[in-house]
């Protein structure tokens, strides 16, 4: 994280909040800093910026500062903040917005961000056959993120393999994927969202 004592010349960009509203329908500018979102967030312990700080940066138009923050990926979308905000600001929705922006602008890489790697592998999997095949998804996630290397070195990989075997024994890890019939429709949906499909292609190439 950068030095917070640094004097930042604010150049608020009201277009940013306008863009947020256009893309997500959310109006963060209603915030009056009561901090209820942060006080009630179960995951602040793992965040670099608190939810109220994210909102504040967005209000200032300093989207760049938080696009690469850990917070947006730590958010589990439990919606506690959104549900309780006295100004009805969809804070969880803002986190989604930021994740989507980071993804669209290519600011995150699967190898550097495990959460992103997982979401990406997941979306790819849907794009493949319309349903997620968990057994394959987990493998692909491990490979695309490189998470297996870390898990190998700290020994948790074996733990996970044991867990996988246990699930398999319980009939919970099928070996064959199922897909939908109407793949034409599926392609149409993914193509409608050009950024995503482009990314999907890229990632399958990588």
């Amino acid at each position, binding site marked *: 994280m950068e030095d917070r004592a640094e004097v930042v010349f604010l150049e608020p960009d009201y277009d940013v909040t306008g863009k947020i509203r256009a893309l997500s329908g959310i109006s963060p500018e209603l915030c*009056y800093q009561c*901090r209820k979102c942060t006080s009630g967030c179960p995951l602040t312990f793992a965040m670099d910026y608190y939810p109220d700080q994210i909102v504040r940066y967005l209000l200032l138009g300093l989207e760049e500062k938080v696009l690469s923050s850990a917070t947006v990926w730590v958010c589990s979308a439990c919606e506690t903040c959104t549900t309780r905000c006295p*100004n009805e600001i969809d804070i969880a929705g803002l986190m989604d917005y930021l994740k989507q922006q980071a993804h669209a602008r290519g600011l995150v890489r699967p190898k550097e961000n495990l959460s992103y790697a997982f979401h990406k592998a997941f979306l790819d999997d849907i794009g493949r056959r319309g349903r997620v095949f968990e057994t394959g998804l987990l493998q692909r996630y491990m490979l695309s993120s490189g998470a297996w290397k870390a898990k190998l070195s700290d020994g948790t990989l074996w733990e996970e393999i044991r867990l996988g075997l246990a699930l398999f024994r319980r009939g919970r890890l099928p070996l064959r994927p199922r897909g939908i019939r109407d793949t034409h429709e599926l392609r149409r949906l993914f193509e409608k969202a050009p950024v995503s499909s482009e990314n999907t292609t890229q990632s399958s190439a990588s």
Partner: protein
Amino acid sequence: MTETKEKKNKGNVLVVGGGVAGLNAALDLAAQGYHVDLVEKESDLGGTVAKLHRLYPLCSCCKAANRATLCKMHPNIRAWTKSSVARISGQAGAFQAVIAGPTGETPIEADAVILAMGVEPFNPQAYDTYAYAAYENVISSIELEWLQKPVGPFQGVPKRPSDGQPPKKVAWLQCVGSREINKCDAPYCSSVCCMYALKEAVQLKDALPEAETTIFFMDMRTHGKGYEKYFEDAKQKGVRLVRSRIHSIEKAAGTEDLVLEYVDENGAKQVETFDLVVLSVGLRPSAELEELAKMLGVTLSEDHYVAVDNFKPCETNVAGVFVCGGATGPRDVHQSVVEAGAAAAKAAAWTKGVSGNGAVAEFRDVSGEAPSVGVVLSLCPSKLPEFEALIDPLAAFVKTLPGVTFVERLDLLDSAAFGRLSQRLQAAGVNRLVYASCTPLMHQELVESAMKEAGLNPSLYEFVDLRALGSTPVEMNRLQDLFRTAVLKARMLEPLNYAKVPVKKSALVIGGGLAGMQAALALAEMDVPVTLVEKKDRLGGHAHKVRSAWKGESVQDFLKSTIDKVTQHPKITVLTSAEVVGARGFAGNYISTVRHNGQKKEIEHGVVVLATGAHSIKPDEYAYGKHPEIYRWSDFTKKLIDDPAAFKSAQCAVFIQCVGSREPQRPYCSRLCCTFAVRSAIDLKTLNPDMDVYVLYREVRTFGERERIYKEAREKGVFFIRFDLDSKPQVSIEDGRLKVVVTDPILGRPLALSPDFISLQTAIIPAEAADLAAFYKVSLNEDGFFAESPAKMRPVDGETEGVFFAGLALAPKPVEESLAEAWAVAGRAMRLLRQDVMLVGGAVAEVDPDKCAVCLTCVRTCPFHIPFIDSPQGHAFIDPGLCQGCGMCVSECPGKAISYRRLSDDHIAVMALSLLGSDVN
């Protein structure tokens, strides 16, 4: 001494709601001779205030209960309890209503209607995360008031519901049901909760000094007169304040304790356990309001209160229907009482009646009778139970005292008690009264009217001061001495003379700002000739520097039309460039000296209105004066008034709040600056949406429905940055450009702004008024504003009768509040001016012509220059109508020629003896 008894009604007014606003409106109207039907849905009058433990800063029980009693006793008021208005139709001057009550339906007629239905507390069950209904130790602030009440379940020492133990760690959660659009549909601020939470916390610490008290808040809104100081004092007393809105209350496993999790101002997550959590619930309009408004065709606001034009406070859209107190929006008691006065005045102006009061009842001649003393014990409910235990033995002792024929206990909570008292006194044939209480001054009016009702000269009473006494059995000795002495004194009392003095039915208004002009217009509309004196060469005062009211209404247009009305009104004489340089007299009979055009002239008048206004300070911080684009808010406004597009091309604007306010040297909030900044910011953003507008504030105090414009400003992109007193924004000038550096507390980092201009919201300071205060015998508070009568919820009355205040001279306030005060002043003044004669005399100094040596000592001594030498008679004369009864001349007179029969030298000597235990019967 005033006397009002009216046989013939001037008009009928229906007042709906018997809370503090309704009671005051009813009493004001009744005192002017109007007949009032007062309708209250509860079984007793008093409303919300009666449920509260204390009001800032004193005990509330004597305030609401007093008025409820007066309403019930008043011959001009019909109080309908457990009743509601079932139907109402008709129009101004001829409303027909049906009152439904326990005895069925009664049709009544009214010339005007006042809506005073007040507020209801918000039901916190809507917040399921606060588990109000589920956890025993989560209570509402209204419940805490009850727990804190000395007459409540625990004699004033709160205990927590789960185990009956006194709480050790108490949290208040603010804004429960306020400033929130998610759960409770209340985008407004309830205005009163910050102050009552502070009060409750302070009271709790008084009762339980070991208890820890914490208030979780967003903005501390202590914008009322004296409130900011109370806030500071509360902090000194150890009330902790945490700026964080609590998201949920959790029960600690296995106990009834409550866990709060929050992020503190340093950004650290905290988990704290409390044993009692108080939800500071907001206000809602009374449920009755909506229905009645519909029947009358009265328009309501978005927040379901009565919609009121800021320039016509207390008026509805329906002619003849007025509104005051909580029905107009969230209000504190002070503002409710101001509005009650204003609504009463407007209703009275609407139904102009014949002026004049009837005959004053004669008192029974007791001169031939042997003293027969009635003793009444009236115990304030806040007295300790130990004190209570002393009362029965004391009453037994009092019965044995010579001359005592009647001893009775008066229940202060029973609002009909004083009414019964007069009958009891009459039945018992009592001719002297000893009244013991811990509120002797507050009850004086009630005691005197009860005596008058009983046909007794009100001077035939003596009081026992029960204040500041101990509660242990040791106290018994002193109590016996006090009562023996009072009874002795009562037996010695002789009835005093009262004279009837004609009232001068005219008014002097000092100060030609909006408040003064409005007061003059209001009085003139009630046919009172008014002289309006303004120091400057033009009318308008401070309002020339105000662009709009909070909703955006143009003050300049209103000001212009007001000046036109004032200058054209046949009943108003305007003296500009004029100054009051002296005054003498008393309520109903003032003679003031005005210097005008180099000449002095005397003006006779019955009442005086001090509306001398205020200025804003010239700051010596924030680089003020060093750059042409750093404005005081008044200069900024002036520029905008002259050229509405003056700032249109600016790229960046910065507003800095609390400049000189809420600082140690000026420890009050200037009340109107937050609304001003927010309003101006919205207007700038409307003018030029691309302008970056920053408001640097300490607390955003957009109280009441003004919270809506705070929301609007945020919606429009105005950016609010909070700062503390120890981290003020730094303003500098670099190469001719302005630069402001301020640390954002949320991000914890400094931000630098480059505004094109800065508006400094500088503190409001009162105009110099020490001379006027001295002329009219009223006082200034430590901040230099006029001090209103401290005793009995009289927000526009001076300590001296016949003197009234309005506008900024009392305290900083927005236009609509000044206008309401002006009307309230008119109403209060009319209580006096409607009378043809006043009773004067009583406790005054009297000269014995035979003993007077014409030494002029009294003439020199009297602070009010009342005594003079009556040449034909050859002795000093003191006009009983002018004498203020201080007794100074009595003590100074070398020949002992002046007597003071209310408290003679003999009385004092005997009292001293008796108090020291001697038996002097």
